[in-house]
Structure formats: structure tokens, C-alpha cells
């Protein structure tokens, strides 16, 4: 029995699926659920994002009482048939909510029926009670790849320079789009072709091309899961880093790993790596006087999902001399990942909680000088009269368009914001 959650910040499996699906160009989610489920998703994902930011545009069956009592399959059939005529899309993905799953609507049959009539429709089962918004990333990504390969069976035509990136989940991370953009730029600078699967420039065609990539670059446990699946299915090799590569060292590591995999580009990749460090240090040196004048060596608490909070904590500690008092991990990660984190943070506290009240209590007890967290940490920050920087969702009221925390400019932007919190 899972515990109750006070001031919850993480959505359900359906909401996570909506977060991920609405970030893919050409993909139209069709929500088979009661009204209100997906409306609420809007407020946990990045409030300012993309064309489909407005959840009131999402196709939804809004099932009503009689469809609960007598079943809602017919309603879904009708909704699918009409969605393909109203909303522009190349792939329609039916996702299900709790009510429709409990009453046992046959989504598979309805989807199959539409597919047989030639419409590109697939379905993924995502009842809210079955998981966490974070679980949706792998589920949806795999679901689409599998769904597409049923109708798209062309021979592999591997392009060595085409690279997929997995592990940065759209709308479940406030800076996902800027972070991905930064990685795409890096790959393209090195003469690769990035295959945008989420956000700007993403298309269903790109999803069909996943199989033809020469390499998958993956981060976090999610990315690894997808990479293994793709290796087995299409034989694509992969580079895996267990964390999102924040900080200059993260970028250097990617470039090194790429150089190992593409010996013919080693020289170029080494040069880019050297330039990145050079540029980073050039700008960092501009910060140096301010760093000492304002005594920017602070005690910090980080609150967020493991893939954001943990690597940022390491970056701030190792690369910026900050004192990380506690890292509060708010997502559900498997035990082995928990153990890994505990090992990595042997010398600082690491807590696993998604309960807003418990998180607040812990921060109150620590009394840090700065919080890197979400909108939900603003009241404790106000109480302690300390600054809060947003690194995790929800971030309502803060507009984040394509800002990145990754790469040279992303790292500098983070340090800039961190320092500015103390220079007033």
C-alpha cells in the first residue's frame, strides 16, 4: 500500500503519458478517460511549452456515467473516428485513464478497428493508479516504437552519423527542451545528425528513423532500458551515462565517449571538447571576482527527481565549491538506482520523498542558504528568507521557453542565476 502524499508534485501514469505525447510533433494523443484528468496535467508539466501547451486542445472522450455503467468502447470508437478528421496528425495514440480501465473498455479492439481502416492509430494502456508520471517515458517511447514497427517494416538502412538521444523526458523536466537542443547542437557541431524525437523539429518520420541510427546516446535508467530494447530489436549500439550530463565535465564525458565510438572523428571531437572547456573557463573567470566578493559558497538543498537533482548537486559541489547539505529525490527509482545514489553521496545527506510537507520539514531543520527546487519550495524559502531556483517541476509562474542547464551555456546560465541570488 503506497503512502498518501501531502502537497503532491508528481502526476499519474496517464498524465505522464500526456506530458510525453504532447511533446512529439505530429503525434495526437486521444485520452480515454473522465473529464479533468488531462486538464490537470497542464499544471504539473512545463506551463509554457510548445504548440499543444493548452490542454483544452487535447482530444478526450470525457466519459460519462452511462459509459461507465455500460462500457465506453463505443464512445472511444466514435472519438477516434472523429479525431482523425478534426485534429491534424500523423500518428494518433489512444491512452487510457483509471475509469475506462476499471470498467474494462476494449481499447485494443477499437484501435485495431481504426488501424484496419487505414488510420495511423495505436494505443498504450496508462491507468493512473498503475504508476507514476515518470514511468510514462519508457512506456510511451516503447509503445510508439512498437506501434510504428507494426506498419513500418522497411529494411534497415543504417546511417552511421544519425544519433538518437534518450533519457531526457519531455515536460517532466522544466528544461528538457533547452537541454535537448544543447545536445543536438553539440552533435551537429561534431558532424553528426541528431534525430529530434521530442519538441522542436520532432516528427513522426524521425520516430520511424530511430531504427536507422548509428548510435543511441542514452542517460539515466530510462534511457538504458530503451537502449537495450533497441539494441536487441535493431542492433543499434549505445553510449550510456547514468546521469544527465550537467556541468562542463558532463559534456566532456559525452565527447570522450563519442570519440571512443567514432575513431575517425576523434580529432574533431577532441578539439570541440577542448574548445568547450576553454570557452567555459573564459566566461567562468568573469564570475571569479564576484564569487569571492559576495562569498558565493553557500549551503544548498536540492529538491527534484534523481536525474536532475543528483547530477546538479555534484556539479555545484565539485565544480562550484558549494556545500550540498541535502539532496531530496522526488521520483520513484528502482532499488539498485537508490543504492547507487547512496554510494555516490556518501558524504552528504540523500533523502527519498515526494511529500511536500516532509520535504519542507527537512529543509526547515537544515536551514540552508539556498534551495534548488520547485514552486512547492517557495513557501519554505519565504519562511527562511532564502532564494529558491527552479530546477524541477512544477514551475508555474516561471516562463521557461528554451533555456538550458546543459552544456557550456547551460552550465554558465545556472551559475549566473545561482550567483545572482546573492549579489543583490
Amino acid at each position, binding site marked *: 500500500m503506497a503512502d*498518501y502524499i501531502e502537497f503532491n508534485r508528481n502526476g499519474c501514469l496517464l498524465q505522464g503519458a500526456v506530458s510525453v505525447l504532447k511533446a512529439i510533433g505530429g503525434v495526437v494523443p486521444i485520452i480515454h478517460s473522465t473529464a479533468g484528468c488531462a486538464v490537470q496535467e497542464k499544471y504539473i508539466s512545463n506551463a509554457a511549452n510548445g504548440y499543444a501547451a493548452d490542454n483544452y486542445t487535447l482530444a478526450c472522450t470525457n466519459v*460519462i456515467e452511462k459509459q461507465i455503467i455500460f462500457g465506453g468502447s463505443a464512445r472511444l470508437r466514435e472519438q477516434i473516428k472523429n479525431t482523425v478528421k*478534426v*485534429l491534424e496528425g500523423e500518428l494518433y495514440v489512444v491512452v487510457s485513464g483509471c475509469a475506462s480501465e476499471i470498467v474494462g473498455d476494449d481499447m485494443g479492439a477499437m484501435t485495431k478497428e481504426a488501424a484496419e481502416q487505414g488510420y495511423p492509430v495505436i494505443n498504450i494502456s496508462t491507468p493512473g493508479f498503475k504508476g507514476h508520471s515518470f514511468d510514462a517515458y519508457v512506456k510511451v517511447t516503447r509503445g510508439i516504437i512498437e506501434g510504428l514497427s507494426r506498419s513500418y517494416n522497411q529494411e534497415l538502412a543504417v546511417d552511421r552519423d544519425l544519433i538518437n538521444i534518450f533519457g531526457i523526458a519531455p515536460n517532466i523536466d522544466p528544461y528538457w527542451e533547452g537541454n535537448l537542443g544543447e545536445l543536438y547542437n553539440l552533435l551537429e557541431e561534431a558532424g553528426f545528425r541528431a534525430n529530434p524525437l521530442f519538441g522542436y523539429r520532432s516528427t513522426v518520420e524521425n520516430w520511424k528513423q530511430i531504427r536507422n541510427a548509428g548510435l543511441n546516446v542514452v542517460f539515466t535508467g530510462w534511457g538504458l532500458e530503451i537502449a537495450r530494447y533497441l539494441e536487441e530489436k535493431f542492433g543499434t549500439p549505445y553510449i550510456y551515462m547514468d546521469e544527465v550530463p550537467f556541468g562542463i565535465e558532463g559534456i566532456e564525458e559525452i565527447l570522450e565517449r563519442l570519440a571512443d565510438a567514432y575513431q575517425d572523428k576523434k580529432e574533431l571531437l577532441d578539439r570541440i571538447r577542448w574548445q568547450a572547456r576553454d570557452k567555459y573557463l573564459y566566461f567562468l573567470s568573469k564570475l571569479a571576482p564576484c564569487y569571492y566578493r559576495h562569498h558565493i559558497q553557500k549551503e544548498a538543498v536540492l529538491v527534484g527527481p534523481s536525474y536532475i537533482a543528483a547530477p546538479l548537486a555534484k556539479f555545484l559541489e565539485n565544480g562550484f565549491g558549494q556545500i550540498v547539505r541535502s539532496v531530496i529525490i522526488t521520483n520513484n527509482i528502482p532499488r539498485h538506482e537508490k543504492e547507487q545514489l547512496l554510494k555516490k553521496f556518501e558524504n552528504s545527506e540523500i533523502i527519498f520523498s515526494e511529500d511536500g510537507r516532509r520535504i519542507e520539514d527537512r529543509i526547515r531543520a537544515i536551514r540552508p542558504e539556498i534551495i534548488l527546487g520547485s514552486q512547492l519550495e517557495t513557501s519554505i524559502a519565504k519562511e527562511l528568507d532564502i532564494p529558491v531556483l527552479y530546477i524541477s517541476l512544477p514551475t508555474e509562474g516561471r516562463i521557461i521557453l528554451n533555456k538550458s542547464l546543459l552544456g557550456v551555456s547551460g552550465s554558465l546560465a545556472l551559475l549566473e542565476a545561482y550567483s545572482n541570488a546573492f549579489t543583490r
Partner: protein
Amino acid sequence: MAVLKGKAPVIREKSLSAIGAYYGTVEAILREFYDGNLKQRVRTFSQDTNSDILYALQVINTIENAGIIIHGPRGCGIIQNHFNNRNSLATMWAVTNIDEEDSILGSDIKLRKTVKSIYEENHPGVIFVLTTSVVAINNDDVASVTQDLTEELGIPVVPVYTDGFRSKVGVTGCDVAIHSIVKYLIPNKAEKENFINVISVNENRESLEEIGRLLEALEVETNVFPGFSKLQDLTRAGSALFNLVIRKGEGDYFAKVLKDIYDIPEIEVNAPIGIKATDKWLAGIGEQLGKERQARELIEKESLYTADILEKYKLDRTKVFLSCEPEYANSVISLLEDLNAEITGIKVPYLDITHLKHMEKLYRKNPELSLLIGEGQPYEQINILKKTGTEIFVGNDLAAGSIAVEGIPVLNIENINILGYRGSMVFAEKLYKLVKYRGFAENFKYSSNRPVYQAGWLKKNANWYIKQEVK
């Protein structure tokens, strides 16, 4: 107390013949109502819309020292973070986090544990338990848990039976929450005292400020609830001399129940939007409460002054589409017409028998006017906006975001005050600025972004997917 007998009130479709889907002339729908031939319609294509839970939350989530427990899977009620942010409050809330195991084995133990723990840690003055679709379908026992814990903890633990599917109009959720508030929080008997109830569910702070300012000028003692109220404001509601409801669609059930139980009459006035309607609102309240002189003086002082200001913001036959509550439609349209705008159409989230007089007035003024009924549903609105050449969208609806990217500027009236004299000025000024300075909206006119809607749909009649419900 017959009115409070059920665990939840009768849904609006049944109690008020509410409908949530229609597109056509005002005349045709009035005819259906009057001929007793009202057809319940549904959408065969629909976009995401608000559920009763979202409305019920808004009734209770600004009450001071209240705790809210949403009894459902983890995603349910997460919008409360947004409400807290919008209201600059930190109202305590929790979700019981029903998982697969609970959904099979039942969840009442979990609810019990949650309520107790929330009570022990936060000591709220009242705990509301909102149910969700999973709990409703599984028929989990909430009543006995809330009853037991009310006795055990010594504070009211109030069940609010929302479910997300019983009604097609989300606003029913207001009734569900109000039903429980009156049933569990307001004492059965009350001595009359010298104040009136001002029932405000969802007005923002600016709106409440303006209403408060006007009523203060009338020298009226008020008890404002449930919006930004204290528990004792609710418990003394039975003692009021009159009820005044600010937005009837949300708060009317309060007035109805309070009338039924405590025989509190309602001051029947229309929404104070625009100069004329505000004058009338003040005069009506003044007459009812014997404060005619105060009302007259206030009207004299502010009415002309406001009219002078509005003069500065006159438009040049700008084509405006309006989306707002049905009881606001008349007043907002009058205000828009005073500002020399041309109305291309209106949308209301629902319509019921309490709005027929408003609609009649609307029809007499503008017999050709077409009316869209539905909450959200930007696909229909964009279809109409494009066909009518609408230049500005005025609305309270969150579909505003998707209308904006079609290159049509949006006056979002959700987070500003449009009530009273001050509200009229704010409205007029913001509208004028949008019309005159179009730089932002122009960006989207020649957008290379992928279209959201298919060309085929935009050519169809906007009522294409609205069909008569098959019983």
C-alpha cells in the same frame, strides 16, 4: 432539511435542465426550453474539459485552516498546486494515492490513515474528503470513515462526493461541495443577525475588493464566503438577513439551500458588469435593504465618472467574440456595445432554466446572434472565429491559449476584475490596448507552425459533432 437528504445533490441536468452542448441561434434553443422539448446533446468529438472535482476544489480551497484530502490515484487533484499558486495561499492538501492494489482491495483503511495523520500533523479546523472516479466506481465506503473520524477527532470530516462522470457539466461540482458544507458545517438552527451573506465561490481578490468597496458604501454588513473565508463565516451563514450571490452559476445552490433551511431570501440582482448593470445592481440592493439613499449617492458619484473614462477607450466596430458565464453574457455584451464593439458570437459553458430571461433579452437585442454551449472545446470556437472574422476574443476560458496561437488576441478575463465600476474601467482599458497594439498577435498570423486543426474541419459547420444524445 429534505434538500440535503442525498449524499450529493441532483445533477444540474436534472435539477435545472442544464445542457452542455449546443451550437445554433439563441432563438432556437429558447424555443426548445419553452416548448418543453429540450434535447440533451453530446459531442461525438470532444476536447478535454473540467470535471466536477475541479469546481468542488474551488469552493473549498480558500477557506482558512481547511485541509483537503483527495481520495484517489496520485494524479487526482494535483491542480490544487495551481489553485494555491493563483490564490497566493498554501492551503493544505493531500492525495491518498490509490494504487493498483487499493483499487482492487478497497481503500477505506488508507483513507482513515490519511485523515488521522493529516489531522495530527496539521490540526486543521475542518477536513474535506473529495472522492474520485475510482472510489465511486468501486463504491468504497467513505461515509462511515468520515463519520467515525468526525467523532474521534472532534473536527468535522466532510465527505464531498465528486466523481468526474455523473454530470456532463463540471460546474455541478460546486453544488456537490456546497451541499456538503451546509449539511456538515452549518448548524441547523440560527438566530437572525444584522448582516447579509455575500456568496462568492471563485472571484479573485480584486473582484472581491471591488464588491466589498461598493457594499461598504451602501453601509451593509457582509459575511463573505466561501471564497477567502474563515470557518466561522460559514457556520454563521444561517443567521443572515439576505443572500447575495455574485456569480449565480457557481453559488446559487448555496442561496437555494440556505433559503430552504433558514428561510433567507435572496436579493435578486444581475451581475454588476458595466455601468448600467452596476447602477442597477446597487439600486436593487439598496431598495431591498432600505439603503436607497446610499445607493443613489454612490451611483451619482461613480457612474458619470466611469462613463467619462470609458469614453477614452471607445473602439471602432471591432469584432469581438465573447466567452463567459451565461449570467454574465448580457451585461458584458452591453458593456462591449457601449465601447462600440461588434459581437460576432458568444459561448457559455452551459445553459439552464435560470438563464432563460437573460437569453430572451439577448435575443431581443440581437435576433441573429449565435450561441455555442460547451466548456473548452477550442476546435469549435476557432471554427467560428475564423468564419466570422473575429478580431478579438474575450473570454474566461482556458482554451484562450490555443486561440491566441491562431493570431487572435485574447482578453483573458479570468484573472482580472471586471465587476463594478472599477472592473468596467479595467476591462475597457485592457481591451483598448489589445486592439490598438497588436504586435504580439501579428506574429502568429503567418505562422509556419504545423496547423492544429484540419482544413476540412474548419470548413464544416461548427455544430457538426454536436448530436442529440441517444438514450
